[in-house]
């Protein structure tokens, strides 16, 4: 699956990314925030890709913890790394937008706080896998499940806390001129996410093959 899918996914995501600037540039100017609002076309899809990765992580962790399927574990590691990467993109593009739109680099409102927390959980996951020693795969699976379970609290909190962040519900009401570049970039990011997931899982697969061969060598 990986060998055929990865070039295809890479090609599609590349196509989307390369054409995105054209489409973004032709999108109308947003009246209150002007040019800098166009960061939104990368910022929002990056966060969505991160959420997708976190859900993949959570579900793969459940499958691995209860079903013991090695592919699930590999997918979980890949998803965790990707979620960290996309989260990093979101955390970098966000302040760059915010410093212009809100006047401050950072604010501890609910959405931003939870974004940082999620990123911390993911880094904790990666640290656990790296330094947890033997059996860290199962422990990390447990942590992955908790990471996914924390996500709904992020969405709930924006409805309850007063926040300067644009409400989630603004997205479906975007006029088509804004909508097209957004969904274009969104698709590009999701496809990129899938491509990277498959590449990273393949790396894990190769590593475990290597492990097995080393062990076979030891036994002789």
């Amino acid at each position: 699956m990986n060998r055929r899918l990865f070039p295809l996914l890479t090609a599609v995501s590349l196509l989307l990314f390369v054409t995105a600037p054209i489409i973004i540039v032709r999108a109308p100017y947003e009246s209150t925030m002007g040019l800098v609002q166009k960061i939104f076309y990368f910022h929002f899809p990056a966060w969505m890709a991160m959420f997708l990765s976190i859900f993949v992580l959570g579900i793969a962790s459940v499958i691995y913890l209860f079903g013991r399927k090695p592919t699930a574990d590999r997918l979980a590691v890949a998803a965790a790394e990707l979620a960290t990467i996309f989260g990093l993109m979101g955390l970098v593009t966000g302040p760059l937008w915010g410093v212009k739109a809100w006047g401050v680099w950072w604010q501890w409102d609910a959405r931003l706080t939870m974004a940082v927390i999620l990123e911390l959980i993911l880094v904790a996951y990666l640290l656990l896998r790296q330094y947890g020693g033997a059996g860290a795969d199962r422990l990390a699976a447990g942590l992955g499940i908790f990471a996914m379970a924390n996500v709904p609290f992020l969405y709930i909190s924006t409805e309850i806390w007063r926040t300067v962040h644009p409400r989630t519900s603004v997205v479906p009401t975007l006029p088509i001129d804004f909508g097209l570049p957004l969904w274009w970039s969104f698709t590009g990011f999701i496809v990129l996410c899938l491509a990277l997931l498959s590449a990273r899982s393949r790396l894990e697969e190769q590593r475990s093959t290597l492990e097995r061969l080393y062990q076979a060598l030891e036994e002789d």
Partner: protein
Amino acid sequence: MAVALAVYCAAFAWAPTTLLAAQPPEAAQDGFVPMDEIPADEQLPAAPLLVAAYSAVWAITIGYLWTIWRRLGTVERELADITRRVADRGQS
């Protein structure tokens, strides 16, 4: 993998250029779009922020792809090595 990286780098170089070239006339004049009543010279220019944001996204993507490529290379080299050793062991 190397081809993918090379093409991504080319796209990376192309994207911000397109964005910069397509700015509206008034932005080209003083480098930003005024948003409200704050005097123009006290505002941050938006274009560098936009370019920085897109560049960051591209840089992170390419950086990550590169780390995957490097790790994959190491693992494949070790795999080739160990396959050879198993084969040698099998022969002896």
